[in-house]
């Protein structure tokens, strides 16, 4: 079929949804195999303890049990420990992280043994029968306490302070002493649990005789898993296939190479039967990575009339008990956006990574950038309060000037393009900012028990991970490129193989819109394949808002190769020079004689039967591209939240939420809107509800969804959205990325609004999440302790 519609830029319905919404998805847990056995992990009720002995005899004699294995039993299965691929400094101290711990338990959830049984129930029952005798050690989950090294968690490292990374600063550092106004604030951000709707799980199978294995895993990163699991298990990359089937969300929690994946592979290799594991939700809360968990000391230097001169941030970041794949690199990722969208002259950022007796942290939606944006935007509000200026005026005064070209930033990297003020103005307009301020004043004047607060958050983020050369300079071990293959079939259909690995982001739809426009077909004619290392051979997967700006750009580049070849065949068949052809109405047409034409489906058939191709041309109409971006992309925007706070109970209700984002050109506006909605929902959760709390002995108290407050649709406001468009200069599509924007922008917008609602009562600080009790205490304390 020949299509002439322009698909890029229109809200094409997601082709992924029909099967997902009708229960025809194919998730790991939908899959089972003949002869399959189940794996269950033994996670003893200790937080920090030296293991004396592990007794597996009772478990081994339970019905259906195939085997019970401790680290000692699997000594030869793992030639290397689990991979950490971002040793960000030369002198970083790296805790050894085996799939099963050997001598010590270092956090609640650290597994000491694995049971394999015929059924899942038998495996769980037997896991309960493994007894561990261990002597408890004092546990530390508090960052500052861990940093004192009173309790050292990895004795061989000699300290919990395992890494110290400094950006090194930009601009004149003396402003931090000499500026007329110096604002200093300390902000803590709790640990968060990512809560993908589908927990982790995997199914490993293969042929020990051939040494070939396949792992089906709920992962965001099949290609990176192949490399990491090859290192951990010794299965060569050439004999290891990773399949990410339908994956029910990740938010960074599946951007990892996990112990259970390595164990399932090692066990299928030794047992010779397919091995399956499905994580339970309580297990997910302790054994899947957490996010955030940071403490910042912040300084803003400025003038009395609102000009920001310097911004300085010193951070302690909770690494947890071990490093996972990227753990120490996450704070550093934020280290490039601590200036926000502001034209500060001086810049400083450094952090120390601290080992604690808690679940390892790693990338959680936004990864480093929400942490940064939260403290910047809280600090700017504190500055505005100090000098008595409207926080909107302070922001407007300090935005970086607009630029359609890339320009150097004070933090040392180059920003692809920028235009923050129109985005900001549109947000103020949609929020009816001036009217809200009047309403706020009226309520203050009448001493209402329901006070109004307005919170602003202007942000910039660094997306499109990443230019390989810069990654190398930052000591990341892999590259940041991505790849695509396009194959035009003789029936007019098109197969695209992408190196990105969508798990909710709608790449099948967006990528097919790009290809449809380039080939004059419809998105339904295009099949986008992904998530299987034997199908999409090359790729670096999906995270860090990279898929459109790196992966879709690779598709666009492969598309150009296909079109060039198609044009050559068309010129040959129509017996004209290539220059005499125009691409109009979905076909190559002879200039001046538009009826003489060839469509891509026609040319695909010619290239397939190959009966009469130009001399020396290879058959098949196909193209491949591997693309390494020259720069990151830098989306930005402004979010505004209006809340009502009950001053008697401290409870917050969101009245209005406005998000105006600039993610460059938009491929599918409906998908972009959905990404912002989901991102804001997660950010509202972070601002008002979610917090992983540990008790004094290091046990996770927020151990289920009853105590860890994931908000529901009832708590999430409807969001008014708009966009401005400042195309990226990094890629030909002009796209910047939108997957994390909502999560980055929203927490400070909401918390700033809550503080604003009660600031006239003397409140200037409330920690995140701004729970009713925290707000109530802040008001009470500000009023001198009287309730």
């Amino acid at each position, binding site marked *: 079929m020949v299509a002439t519609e322009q698909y890029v830029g229109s809200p094409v319905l997601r082709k992924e949804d029909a099967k997902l919404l009708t229960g025809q998805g194919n998730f790991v847990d939908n899959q089972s195999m003949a002869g399959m056995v189940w794996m269950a992990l033994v996670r003893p009720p200790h937080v920090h303890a030296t293991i004396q002995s592990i007794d597996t005899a009772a478990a081994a004699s339970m019905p259906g049990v195939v085997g019970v294995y401790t680290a000692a039993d699997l000594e030869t299965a793992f030639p290397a420990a689990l991979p950490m691929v971002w040793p960000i400094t030369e002198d970083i101290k790296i805790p050894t992280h085996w799939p099963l711990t050997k001598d010590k338990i270092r956090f609640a959830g650290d597994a000491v043994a694995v049971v394999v049984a015929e059924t*899942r*129930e038998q495996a*769980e*029952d037997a896991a*309960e029968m493994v007894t561990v005798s261990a002597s408890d050690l004092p546990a530390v989950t508090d960052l500052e306490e861990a940093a004192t090294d009173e309790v050292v968690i990895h004795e061989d490292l000699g300290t919990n302070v395992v890494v110290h990374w400094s950006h090194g600063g930009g601009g004149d550092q003396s402003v931090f002493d000499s500026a007329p106004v110096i604002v200093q604030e300390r902000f803590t951000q709790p640990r968060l649990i990512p809560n993908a709707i589908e927990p982790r799980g995997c199914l490993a199978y293969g042929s020990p005789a051939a040494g070939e294995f396949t792992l089906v895993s709920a992962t965001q990163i099949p290609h990176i898993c192949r490399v990491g699991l090859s290192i951990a298990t010794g299965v060569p990359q050439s004999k290891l296939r990773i399949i990410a089937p339908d994956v029910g969300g990740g938010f960074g929690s599946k951007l990892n190479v996990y112990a259970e994946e390595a164990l399932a592979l090692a066990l299928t290799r030794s047992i010779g039967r397919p091995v399956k594991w499905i994580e*339970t*939700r*309580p*297990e997910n809360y302790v054994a899947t990575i957490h996010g955030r968990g940071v403490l910042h000391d912040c300084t803003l230097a400025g003038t009395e009339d609102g000009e920001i001169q310097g911004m300085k941030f010193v951070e302690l970041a909770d690494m947890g008990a071990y490093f996972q794949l990227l753990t120490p690199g996450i704070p550093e990722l934020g280290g490039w956006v601590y200036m926000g969208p502001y034209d500060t002259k001086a810049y400083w950022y450094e952090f120390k990574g601290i080992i604690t007796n808690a679940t390892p942290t790693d990338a959680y939606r936004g990864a480093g950038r929400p942490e940064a944006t939260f403290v910047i935007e809280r600090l700017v509000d504190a500055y505005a309060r100090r000098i008595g200026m409207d926080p909107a005026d302070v922001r407007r005064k300090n935005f970086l000037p607009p630029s359609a070209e890339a320009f150097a930033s004070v933090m040392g990297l180059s920003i692809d393009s920028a235009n923050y003020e129109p985005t900001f103005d549109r947000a103020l307009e949609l929020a009816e900012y001036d009217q809200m301020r009047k309403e706020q004043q009226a309520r203050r004047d009448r001493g209402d028990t329901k006070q109004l607060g307005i919170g602003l958050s202007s942000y910039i983020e660094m997306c499109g991970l990443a230019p390989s050369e810069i990654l190398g300079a930052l000591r990341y071990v892999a590259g940041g490129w991505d790849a695509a293959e396009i194959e035009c079939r003789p029936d007019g259909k098109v197969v695209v193989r992408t190196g990105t690995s969508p798990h909710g982001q709608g790449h099948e739809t967006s990528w097919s819109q790009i290809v449809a426009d380039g080939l004059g077909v419809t998105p339904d004619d295009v099949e986008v394949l992904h998530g299987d290392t034997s199908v999409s051979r090359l790729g670096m997967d999906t995270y860090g808002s990279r898929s459109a700006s790196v992966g879709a750009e690779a598709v666009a580049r492969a598309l150009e190769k296909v079109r060039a070849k198609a044009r050559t065949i068309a010129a040959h068949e129509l017996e004209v020079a290539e220059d005499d052809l125009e691409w109009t109405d979905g076909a190559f047409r002879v200039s001046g004689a538009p009826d003489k034409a060839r469509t891509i489906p026609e040319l695909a058939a010619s290239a397939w039967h190959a009966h009469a191709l130009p001399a020396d041309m290879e058959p098949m109409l196909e193209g491949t591209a591997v693309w390494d971006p020259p720069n990151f992309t830098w989306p930005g925007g402004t979010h505004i939240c209006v809340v009502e706070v009950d001053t*008697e*109970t401290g*409870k917050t209700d969101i009245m209005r939420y406005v998000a105006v984002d600039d993610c460059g050109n938009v491929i599918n506006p409906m998908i972009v809107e959905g990404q912002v909605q989901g991102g804001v929902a997660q950010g509202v959760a972070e601002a008002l*509800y979610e917090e992983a*709390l540990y008790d004094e002995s290091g046990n996770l*108290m*927020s151990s*289920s969804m009853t*105590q860890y*407050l994931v*908000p*529901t649709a*009832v*708590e999430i406001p409807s969001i008014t959205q708009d966009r401005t468009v400042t195309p990226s200069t990094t890629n030909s599509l002009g796209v910047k990325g939108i997957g994390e924007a909502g999560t980055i922008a929203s927490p400070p917008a909401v918390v700033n609004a809550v503080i604003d609602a009660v600031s006239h009562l003397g409140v200037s600080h409330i920690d995140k999440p701004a*729970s*009713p*009790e925290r707000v*109530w*205490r802040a008001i009470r304390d500000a009023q001198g302790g009287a*309730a």
Partner: protein
Amino acid sequence: MIPAAFEYARAESIDHAIELLGGADDAKILAGGHSLLPLMKTRLAQPSLLVDISRIGDLSYVREDGDMVAIGALTRHHDVANSELLQQVAPIVADTASRIGDPQVRHVGTIGGSIAHADPAGDMGTVMVALGAQFAISAAAGATRTVAAGDFFQGLFQADLAANEVLTEIRVPKTSGGWSYLKFNRRAIDWAMVGVAAVQQNGSAAVALTNMGETPLRAAGVEEALAGGADPATASARADEGAAPPSDAFGSAEYRREVSKVLVRRALEETLG
């Protein structure tokens, strides 16, 4: 998340249920399962036998009984919420049921299960205490007895209900005056962090509290103050007298005490106009 192994039996009648319950050491009644199954999945409860009463046909009803309304123990929260009779003559019961959990919970959970479970954070128990409801209980050998709500709740998850007894009917008095059930929680789906039920009774009000102790509590200090002529603002200052609220991830005991005072005042203002 995988319960320990258990046996399952479906009861055909109340007597059959009692017989089945008597036949095992550690049997439990299964009604809607929305309190029991979560406990079993985390293995906090490991009953050897589940006696499923949910198919006993004649235990789901709402009907008038003189100046009372009788509610069958198996009536789902959804049906309680949507009963026109309750909406007219005991609206606090219907309204409270409509705010338990989420639609899924309300379509499966039962009023009898809610009350028998004796969770101090449950909403229905508090409303029953404020109303002075009566509970009908069947025991072995055809024996039956009736217990007042105020005597039924004995401690944390402890009720005046033996292991081989079945709660069959809940009887609530008709009300004609003002009423209010205020539920303070972080998320709409959550149990009450603090809840307050107030029902007008001859010019004064009966007041009971959710999650302010080990059982639903009568706010005796408030009732006494009101009887002595105090206005809601003054009376509500005594809301937490005799209470022993928990401290947990949702809020500290100190905070719950303060919230209970605010809620009692607001509930009384609604109830007494």
